[in-house]
């Protein structure tokens, strides 16, 4: 039962080929096999959202996915958000609006908001809060992340 499966997966634009045990979760694969520790584990049962990444552009909980299922897929993690080594507008807005405190849930939230802003460039506060219900934050009371998301949407609209 420890048959290794060969997978080839694109993560943040770079292709990785690895052998993985079937039961290795995608979260553990990213963190320990690839060394991308920005994706965090808060519950391992699909509620807290800290492990959220994008699979082919779609938000997914990496604690509920096996690495072996990702063969041929294209993933984006929080490490893939930075632009030219600096913070992208959403990340900057999180700093500006105190969208994080301990930072543990933040990576996952950034991925979900990235998907939201891509699908819906003009979200309402309700839209943002609805997306945030896929995440638990114990520090901010959600005000900072909401403000940061709405501010980013405004900023991105004004750029266009």
């Amino acid at each position: 039962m420890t048959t290794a499966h060969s997978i080839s997966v694109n993560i943040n634009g770079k292709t990785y080929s690895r052998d993985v045990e079937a039961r290795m979760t995608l979260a553990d694969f990213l963190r320990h096999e690839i060394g991308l520790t920005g994706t965090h584990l808060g519950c391992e049962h699909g509620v807290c959202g800290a492990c959220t990444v994008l699979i082919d552009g779609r938000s997914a909980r990496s604690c509920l996915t096996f690495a072996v299922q990702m063969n041929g897929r294209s993933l984006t993690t929080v490490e893939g958000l930075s632009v030219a080594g600096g913070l992208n507008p959403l990340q900057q807005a999180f700093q500006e609006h105190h969208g994080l405190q301990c930072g543990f849930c933040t990576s996952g939230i950034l991925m979900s908001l990235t998907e939201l802003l891509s699908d819906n460039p003009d979200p309402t506060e309700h839209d943002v809060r609805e997306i945030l219900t896929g995440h638990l934050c114990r520090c901010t009371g959600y005000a900072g992340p909401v403000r940061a998301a709405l501010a980013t949407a405004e900023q991105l609209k004004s750029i266009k």
Partner: protein
Amino acid sequence: MGSKNFGARVTRFEDVALVSGQGQYVDDIRIAGTLHAAFLRSPHGHARIKSIDTSAAQRCKGVHAVLTAADLPERMRKQRMPLLLPNATMATLRTQHSLAVDEVCYVGQALAIVVADSRYLAEDTLAAIEVDYEVLGAVSDVRAALADGAPRAHADLDSNVVSQFVMNYGDVDAAFASAPHVFREELWQHRGGGMAMETRGVLAQANVTTDSLTLWSSTQTPHIARRMLAEVLDVDLESIRIIAPDVGGGFGPKAIFYPEDAVVAHAARALGRPVKFIEDRREHFLCATQERDQYWNVEIAVDDDGNILGVRGDMLHDTGAFVPWGIIMPYIAGATMPGPYVVPAYHLACTVAFTNKVATTPVRGAGRPQAVFAMERLMDRVAHELKLDPADLRRRNYIRPEQMPYSVGLIFRDGKPLIYDSGDYPRGHDAALKLAGYADFPARQAAAKADGRFIGIGVASYVEGTGLGPFEGVTVRILPDGRVRVTSGATSQGQGTRTTLAQIVADRVGCRIEDVVVTIGDTAGIANGVGAFASRLAVNAGSSASIAGDHVRASILKMASRALGLPESEIDLEDGKAIGRGGNRPTVSFGELSRAAQGMPGFSMDADHPVGLEHTAYFTPAQASYCSGTHVVEVEVDVGTGAIKILNYSVAHDCGNVINPLIVDGQVQGGVAHGIGNALLEWMQYDENAQPLTTTFADYLLPMATDVPICAIAHVETPSPLNPIGVKGAGEGGTIPAAAAIIAAAENALSSFGVRFTETPLMPDRIVQALQRAGAYGEHVA
């Protein structure tokens, strides 16, 4: 001297790494050769361990060690965890062994550790350990713990009572005897857990050559942990270094020293390999400490105008199976109850009893939410019975600002007389009411009623002792390159301690905030430390930073005066440079002065020349400093389902001088979210055998983004005279009165039905039950 950073909305420099996924939490730290631990945990609330057989487990794949208590060194096996806060009233000082020896007293108590090549393999191995238990009677409900013939939470103890103590002052019997009105309430309160998003974790690495030990731990208190670990392992304190890296939330439970950390450290030493233990969420529900049930039976005596004459009653506190932090929480609760009001006489008898659950230790609020709930429910009862407006009733009973400092008459948890140092409760009260549009609420309520909607408003006020001692030191050191290094025993689990300290120091020494480098949470960084809990760091570390910064400033000026040939009064410190006024503005940089303060090898320095450009200060507060505030909450109750929706949340918050409004507002908002959880969602349930029933995030409910509105926040700043920067703590005020205000609002929304609520959390089915009893549901259900 500038204060351009103190009080400014400075964004946090911690954030750059964190939003980029470059944070370093314990599980992110990778050392080659690390092994991974899992613990075998008791499935029973109370049982005797008859035997443990690890022979099959030791043969499992990838296993390096399987240890039980029997495998530990004798002294470590027999020693219980050091008790941090003993109290004379405690009948028993029972704390845990590192690994259970012959009895387990809560579901989740650890009996064995498996160390393997991976966490996956370690978990596989747990199933191979054979334990023969003799299940014993377990105590679950703390009220049952006091009954005659109740099972003993610990088989060898005669009683489940840990402590009985009284907090009192004044002649409460006389007050009640002559009072025109006496009202009584019986209240059940439950708090639940801190539930940080990052669970506990520790990575231990032993260095055999130097016989030393380094631990990275998701702890709020590395220096305390170091002392505890040294004692448990019986090693030299100086041989241990504990580092709290990035920590994903604390809220209290991570201030405790857990036995697992000692076992992991021991395993690292025994195996000569680094060992990492990352608690999973299920373990966190079982083993991370919590606050839980208190039963309050209290009454209030008032005159015809609602002026308080006295408060008395009793309180029963469930302390779980062990008392690592003594009886701090019920003590704090008892001392907090009089609150912002003039209470001429007070008597609260507290009983603390064991149950077979994980230990109860402080969670954000630390006993104060319960005290405030009790007091505020009594006040609302008075308002209801005497037909007074609840806000007016409070206002007429507040201690007035001119009465500060105000001696309550009790001894507080800091060991000092409970004296409120500063505060303006009426001003906070008025500010909150104004934010909330309280005066217009009756019209809003009537309009909603006409629409078939039930909305209500609730008010709650509190006083909170913060900035508890004994100290938190800070070293400020000018580095040879001119940057300013700040080191402290302070820690951060999200409260922005680094940025806050940088703000203070930059102002004091006269450098750019970008040039301040802050190191916290490392026992190697400073000799003495305490850590984060009880909203104490702004006061303690902030004051130490201010004092150390002033000393360094004085040294810089002295050296610059000599270097520039100018009197100190003609030198400004700005952006890391000492600049003379007038003329060609001669300048010397802090870096140059730092290098000069090293002297030259072999040469004598002048007698009073500073050695190294640095200072370490340990501010020691004389007593706690007292925050206060008022919350006003507007809710809507769905009479059909019992669901409560929070419409508006207004806070007036006095934490003295505000160092960083961005951070303080974040603490208030985050604290309120915990309070909403306490009021409406969070209930750690156990069955009658002390089996936990809520062990996942699907069963134990934390507030989501759709449950927590953005709070309107007004700051009232009454600086504390007890520290040089006039600050008070800000971490818990958002939580403390929240449940009281929310429950009051729900009751107000349903006032036409005459239902009253005396519990928290208040679940929707209880609301429906109450409405059913009140005959609210006719033939046609809404």
